[in-house]
């Protein structure tokens, strides 16, 4: 059980920034950006390449972030200059980036070998302790990202970003330049994907040209899953980051459990798809689990209150 939880943390925490980016476009902007399938790999590839070239691990982390962010910028330019939907621009990018990533890596799989990473200090620890230390470092990075993101959403710029997704016409009439915010959202979302990918690459010790496949659907599934537990809304910022955190970890828990139970790795995408379907069905037919628990809590309170009054 502990091992399942550790697996969940170690493989899930790097995905938190990635899915936060997906949340940004999917929920805050009410749009679909498939660039992430390619930019995730690009971020990982740039990180691996710079590491192999001897860059310090945290600098490689930033390089991976910047590389993926640039990909988001290109998507935004395609969207704005050619006037095609973000969905189409991102689709084109995700296909094109495959070749770019192959050139960056120069090989389908680039192994980091013995170069120093954020986690290489833990090599001497036993398996479980190493996992604990690894997830500790990851949790630190993820916590910093979540807090920074939450604070950003509270700024005038972050508020404008949230408004454009809900009511673009109104946002423009309030003086918000929604084209500029489109660029910002895509750069931010893909930068976050690159950051997560860099964490994953440094942990697993290699970058693979196929590691981004299914990221988008997984992210949407995790967001939907998170929304079952935490009801985020445009102005509930703690709930927004909470939803992404809970959703990502819940999603990873499902996958890790599936692996532990003995499913072959090839079935994982099927499990991802099923998770997505279950999340959607639960939302449709059960209402929010969060609402359910809140209702139970209220009932419990109202059940105990008269008892206390009687006692008094």
């Amino acid at each position, binding site marked *: 059980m502990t091992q399942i939880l550790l697996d969940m943390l170690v493989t899930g925490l790097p995905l938190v920034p990635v899915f936060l980016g997906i949340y940004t476009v999917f929920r805050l902007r009410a749009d679909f950006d498939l660039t992430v399938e390619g930019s995730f790999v690009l971020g990982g590839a740039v990180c691996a390449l710079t590491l192999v070239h001897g860059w310090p691990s945290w600098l490689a982390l930033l390089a991976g972030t910047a590389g993926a962010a640039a990909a988001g910028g290109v998507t935004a330019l395609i969207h704005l200059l050619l006037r095609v939907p973000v969905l189409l621009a991102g689709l084109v990018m995700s296909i094109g980036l495959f070749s770019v990533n192959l050139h960056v890596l120069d090989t389908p799989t680039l192994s980091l070998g013995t170069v120093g990473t954020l986690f290489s200090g833990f090599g001497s620890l036993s398996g479980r302790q190493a996992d604990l230390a690894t997830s500790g470092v990851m949790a630190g990075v993820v916590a910093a990202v979540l807090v920074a993101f939450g604070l*950003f959403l*509270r*700024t*005038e*710029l*972050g*508020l*404008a970003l*949230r*408004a454009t997704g*809900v*009511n673009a*016409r*109104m*946002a*423009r*009439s*309030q*003086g*918000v*330049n*929604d084209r500029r915010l489109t660029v910002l959202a895509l750069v931010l979302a893909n930068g976050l994907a690159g950051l997560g990918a860099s964490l994953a690459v440094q942990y697993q010790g290699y970058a693979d040209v196929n590691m981004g496949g299914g990221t988008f659907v997984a992210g949407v599934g995790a967001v939907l899953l998170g929304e079952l537990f935490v009801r985020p*809304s*445009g*102005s509930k910022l703690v709930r927004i980051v909470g939803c992404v955190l809970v959703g990502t970890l819940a999603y990873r828990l499902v996958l890790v459990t599936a692996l532990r139970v003995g499913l072959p790795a090839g079935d994982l995408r099927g499990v991802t798809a099923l998770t997505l379907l279950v999340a959607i069905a639960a939302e449709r037919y059960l209402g929010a689990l969060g609402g359910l628990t809140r209702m139970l809590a209220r009932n419990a309170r109202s059940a105990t209150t008269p008892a206390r009054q009687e006692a008094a």
Partner: protein
Amino acid sequence: MLRLADIDLIYNAGRVDEVVALRNLSVTFERGQFVTVVGTNGAGKSSLIQTISGAARPTRGRIHLDDRDVTRLPDHRRAGWIARVFDDPRAGTAPELSIEDNLALAMARGRSRGLRFAVTARRRAVMREHVAGLGLGLENRLADRVGLLSAGQRQSLTMVMAALSAPSVLLLDEYLAALDPETTATVLALTTELVRELGATTVMITHNMDHALALGDRLLVMSRGRVIADYDGTEKSEMTVSGLIDRITGAGDALSDRSALIEQGARPRPRPGSARRRSHRTGSDWSGARGAIRSPDGSRR
């Protein structure tokens, strides 16, 4: 002063579904003038608003705001000077966001948005003061989602948002259409008060003939993309609802259902038919308007 000169607005130009929404339209609004605009459906009233706000770029012509040529500025770059209330109560606010977030968005209008916190204790105090004036109790619900508010509450909030950054032009496009009579009266009272406070040039589109005649100090009648009549305050005060409807229908347009309904409810006023009308573009000054504080319009051609 807001001046539109030789404006054409053509949708889908060059295609089979080409629509001329505004045709060679020239009109000047003096600073602080409160203008009501009437006309049948499709007359081009909303197009006029779209053009002034910058949401639609005219095919031809220029728009000047005071000494500035704003023709090429998109709507979000005019927002610092030009505030707008939409006909749909849902359009003017972001339903997913809280009342204070909506207000904060409006507070930053006309400034560049940076990494300052949008809602601070000081700003919240200012917001509270502004919405308290509505008398709706919204000052105690700043954290509530706007989606929870009724249409009238939302439209009132939109009015407050429009006024927050002291715009020099206020555009109201049938913004009372979705409200019940009582709420209409409340929001209308709020409007006249804000307009007086702000001293903003106000353009109000309405299908309610009583409002068109009772409010403001100038009345425009539009038809087929043109201004076909332009009454100043005195002329307007002598006008009757039926006279105005005659004027609108006289242009050969079928009266819209909404106007027809209002016509049925309209009471005849004294001095029927005494309203003079003046075709648009005939030069003259406007100093006779009731309570007007503006100078004679020398720029009119």
